[in-house]
């Protein structure tokens, strides 16, 4: 084995990659993974945990659950290539189910409220507002 110390300029000239830029993501997730994730804006940073695309490229792991949203654009193609499908059809937490249900009910009530207001039916509008308030309270308790 031959060991050579190269300065920045020489290493570029000789085509030696920057070792810190070594893409573990490629190794763990398949060639092209590191490139794929860069499809989003390159300077993007997760607002929740501060993770960057460079971090993902290095580790092949994400920083927190919110990263899935932050890096959604780049992750989309990656997940598609990696898995059987692109949407989860298995188990879900009951909490998530109730949240979805509450969201649906909330949307319906708001639509009804808009209609009631448009029809100048203020009595039922007031009743609907009360219901929405109760639902909002229920939602905040669950969190």
């Amino acid at each position, binding site marked *: 084995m031959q060991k050579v110390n190269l300065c920045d300029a020489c290493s570029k000239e000789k085509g030696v990659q920057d070792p810190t830029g070594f893409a573990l993501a490629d190794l*763990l*997730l398949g060639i092209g993974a590191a490139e794929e994730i860069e499809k989003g804006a390159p300077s993007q940073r997760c607002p*929740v*945990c501060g*993770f960057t695309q460079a*971090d993902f490229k290095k*580790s*092949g*792991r*994400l*920083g*927190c*659950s*919110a990263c*899935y*949203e932050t890096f959604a654009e780049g*992750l989309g193609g*990656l*997940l598609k290539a*990696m*898995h*059987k*499908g*692109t*949407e*989860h*059809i*298995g*188990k*879900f*937490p*009951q*909490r*998530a189910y109730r949240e*979805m249900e509450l969201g649906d009910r909330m949307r319906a009530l708001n639509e009804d409220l808009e209609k009631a207001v448009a029809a100048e039916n203020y009595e039922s509008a007031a009743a609907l507002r009360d219901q929405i308030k109760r639902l909002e309270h229920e939602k905040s308790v669950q*969190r």
Partner: protein
Amino acid sequence: MKFSNVMATGGEWLRGDGPHHQIVISSRVRLARNLRERAFPGHAKKAERTQILELIKPRIEELPEMQDSFSELLQDLSALEKQVLVERHLISREHAAKSVGSAVIMNRRQTISIMVNEEDHLRMQSMRSGLQLKSAFKLVDKIDSTLEAKLDFAYDPRLGYLTACPTNVGTGMRASAMLHLPGLVLSDMINQVIQAVNKIGLAVRGLYGEGTEAMGNLFQISNQTTLGEKEDEIITRLSKVIETIIEKEHDARQTLLQNKPNTLWDQIGRAYGVLTFAHAMTSKEALNLLSVIKLGVDLGVFPEDRRLPIDELFIDTQPAHLQKSSQQKLNAEERDHLRAEIIRERLRVFPKPDISKVAQESENESSSEPQDNE
């Protein structure tokens, strides 16, 4: 429960009596879960990891399944103790490298083990002997359902459970079975089987998972993908493939018996000779020879009541188990001597291989095979 208790009692799955236990050593199902909007363990600072651990650990300890459990912080376990847990498949090699901010909790029967702050905040695993993936899933699914009411798991309606590594997103489930396939190895068919299994999106790995060598003719087969398929669909698909491999292994053994009986008896005889008389043995050699003896028990060359002592040796001759039971740290050479000594001692009462028993065994082989596929 103390570590000495863990050491003294082998896992229930080791006393193999599940369906197809001759070929399927164990079935495991693990679920990965994370807390919403908290940094994953690999990205979290020490303080946050500790905070998350303090949030999760009591919730696990109060589970009815975890009464009288073994619960330990990783920094309180010695390197040797961690390695013992790895050798029993109770924690991963990655988890053994963790210290402050990580923990392991397992039940007395060693059928459930939960790692806190491995790669994900929670890695819950259940283990069963033989081919019992469905019941292993049921066990861990129940724990997950209890915990989700107390902990806010990261979940997205479209992507499912969100995990540190995108390869686990969706169900967060990895189902795997450990198979003993000496017949397929001896008849040079194992690579074909591995390739075929890989082609249909399942992974084949060595004894200790990703990137490890296949020793003792032991192979782990697991699902590769976690998104776009339901948990029970994944398990059914995997179970079917494993049943096919079991059939192939039986076929390979029958073919060897018919076409190359002398090669087979030679292998078994040599394994018996070396194990009975050697004074130094690496763990790799031990596993490979023990595998041949195990095949001998399956074929009736050794009596059935010799199965458990051989199965136990598979675990007891692993490096950390050797050192832990001898209460001292040993170098490689000392380990090899001790390993050979333990094996010699246990095989002292072992009868010589008797190939006259084989013909009868293979005649009623079909009736002696367990019919129950869960």
